[in-house]
């Protein structure tokens, strides 16, 4: 059986505790329209979604996650500020043999509140309280600091956009940064391509290459050809500036020490100042809620390989003995609400707990 009575009992207890703390219970359909939903997720969830065909409603997907439907419901008719909780199954295909379930319970908590650092601290402290007796290892991060650092680089808007886009794919990000910083050579196939593009105007080159087929237009192609030629002329990111970004990516320290470190490099990287201020405000809010920020682990790159929609504070709670996914995880996803709100946006932060893992930990300990 995938969802055990023990897991359901844990889920109900967590769900009740969140309601008692003032969160409003919300539901989300198990069958969700596939189109908009899947377009928003990263490739990982998309590839693992169960998609099915409905004769009247078209392509539908078994709920892979609650966040998007909860945001949609809030944007449609929610009042601010709002605190929501939910409980139910999510469905994700597993691509490897082993014990990981393709159907499991989640209990979640989502806060829509314009006071972002307070809301971050509230969600984290809430989860820490609910999971207090499991002695889990918390880990935090802040993708907003990385995004601010990228924004502040002395380089072309195109290179910044490329780096920003691949923040969630660390290997590719690293390869791009190495190239933009002149640490890695330009690949031979790119040099060949540039030589060919320099040899003639795009219209002639396209005509020689073959008929125009497909949705990607001649204009799209010519535009990128031009962008490639311009990029080839762009100077490398200066070595000291690149070194600061490499340093930031690798930053891992207890939160208070991480703040000290960021304050130390901030004069050299003024673009991160607002994000570091937010970090400091969040740490103060966490302390007021009883979290020991002198020991709370912080990694600047935490959350980069999980959900692509996190763009600020991120956190997770792990059991260090098991190889399981985190018992709980969450983060801030302001950009997602902007996309779903079609012009309107509301700062949002939330997370989920996996009750099956809570039950397993309690069972193993009993």
């Amino acid at each position, binding site marked *: 059986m995938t969802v055990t009575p023990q897991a359901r009992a844990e889920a109900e207890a967590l769900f009740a505790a969140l309601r008692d703390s003032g969160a409003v219970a919300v539901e989300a359909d198990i069958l969700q329209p596939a189109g908009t939903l899947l*377009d928003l997720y990263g*490739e990982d969830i998309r590839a693992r979604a169960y998609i099915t065909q409905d004769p009247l409603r078209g392509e539908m997907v078994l709920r892979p996650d609650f966040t998007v439907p909860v945001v949609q419901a809030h944007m449609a008719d929610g009042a601010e500020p709002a605190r929501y909780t939910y409980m139910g199954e999510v469905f994700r295909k597993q691509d490897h043999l082993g014990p990981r379930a393709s159907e499991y319970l989640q209990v979640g908590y989502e806060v829509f509140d314009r006071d972002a650092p307070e809301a971050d601290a509230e969600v984290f402290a809430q989860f820490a309280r609910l999971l207090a007796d499991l002695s889990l290892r918390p880990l935090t991060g802040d993708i907003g600091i990385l995004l601010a650092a990228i924004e502040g680089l002395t380089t072309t808007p195109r290179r910044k956009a490329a780096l920003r886009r691949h923040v969630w794919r660390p290997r590719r990000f690293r390869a791009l940064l190495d190239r933009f910083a002149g640490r890695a050579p330009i690949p031979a196939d790119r040099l060949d391509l540039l030589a060919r593009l320099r040899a003639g105007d795009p219209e002639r080159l396209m005509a020689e290459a*073959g008929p125009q087929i*497909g949705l990607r237009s001649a204009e799209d192609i010519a535009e990128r050809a031009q962008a490639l030629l311009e990029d080839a002329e762009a100077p490398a990111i200066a070595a000291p500036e690149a070194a600061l970004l490499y340093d930031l990516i690798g930053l891992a320290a207890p939160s208070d020490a991480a703040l000290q470190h960021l304050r130390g490099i901030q004069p050299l990287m003024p673009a991160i100042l607002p994000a570091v201020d937010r970090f400091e405000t969040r740490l103060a809010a966490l302390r007021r809620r009883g979290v020991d920020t002198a020991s709370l682990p912080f990694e600047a790159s935490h959350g980069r390989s999980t959900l692509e929609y996190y763009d600020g504070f991120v956190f997770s709670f792990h059991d260090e003995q098991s190889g399981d996914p985190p018992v709980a995880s969450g983060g801030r996803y302001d950009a997602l609400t902007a996309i779903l709100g079609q012009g309107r946006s509301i700062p949002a932060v939330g997370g989920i707990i996996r009750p099956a893992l809570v039950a397993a930990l309690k069972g193993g300990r009993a």
Partner: protein
Amino acid sequence: MSLKIGVPSKGRLMEKTFDWFGARGVTMRQTGAEREYSGAVDGIDGVELVMLSAGEIPRELAAGRIHLGVTGSDLVRDKLADWNQQVAELAPLGFGHADLILAVPACWIDVDSLDDLDAAAAAFRARHGFRLRIATKYHRLVRDYLTENGIADYQLVDSQGATEGTVKNLTAEAIADITSTGETLRANHLKILQNAVIHQSQATLFLARRADWPPEARAVLSALSAKLGLELPAV
């Protein structure tokens, strides 16, 4: 009959498979009418021939309904999760070569490599409002490859045949498909991305790790592998 071996039931793959075994003293032949899917094996005792579609052999191996099977290495990798835990490769057979590649319209003068495809996908999504579509039937292999290489802003769309035509028909912007000579790609005004071969496939003899392997079947396997000159993996 204690050891079942699945082989492709028709065409060149069947003939080449028969040739490969025949050259090693194991004669496979169709029995009954020419189009009847039944066969026999001479030159060794205890082997039963099961004629199957090459596309179904990975599933039959995984289920343990056959002990050995001949099919493309691409099909096994694409159809089976954690394929090398479910089956073992006994021998590449040296025919049925084909590369699984990515191809884009030849008129994309700005795209030669995976890097370019990734950047084109970003611009495409920004301009057209949806992810760049890659038509393929090899979902697992292609997705794993693109994920491994950090490609974003694409989506795979299913195409079970005539995949080279999807770009012209506006149901995809790029394709991932098997090619041996590249002729069909060129005829459809597509070009292969450089340095982006997803998998080099060939017909391969596989062993089902999870089939029932009673002592009689193991004995037949030992005799067969001695005859074929194969080394057996630990099962």
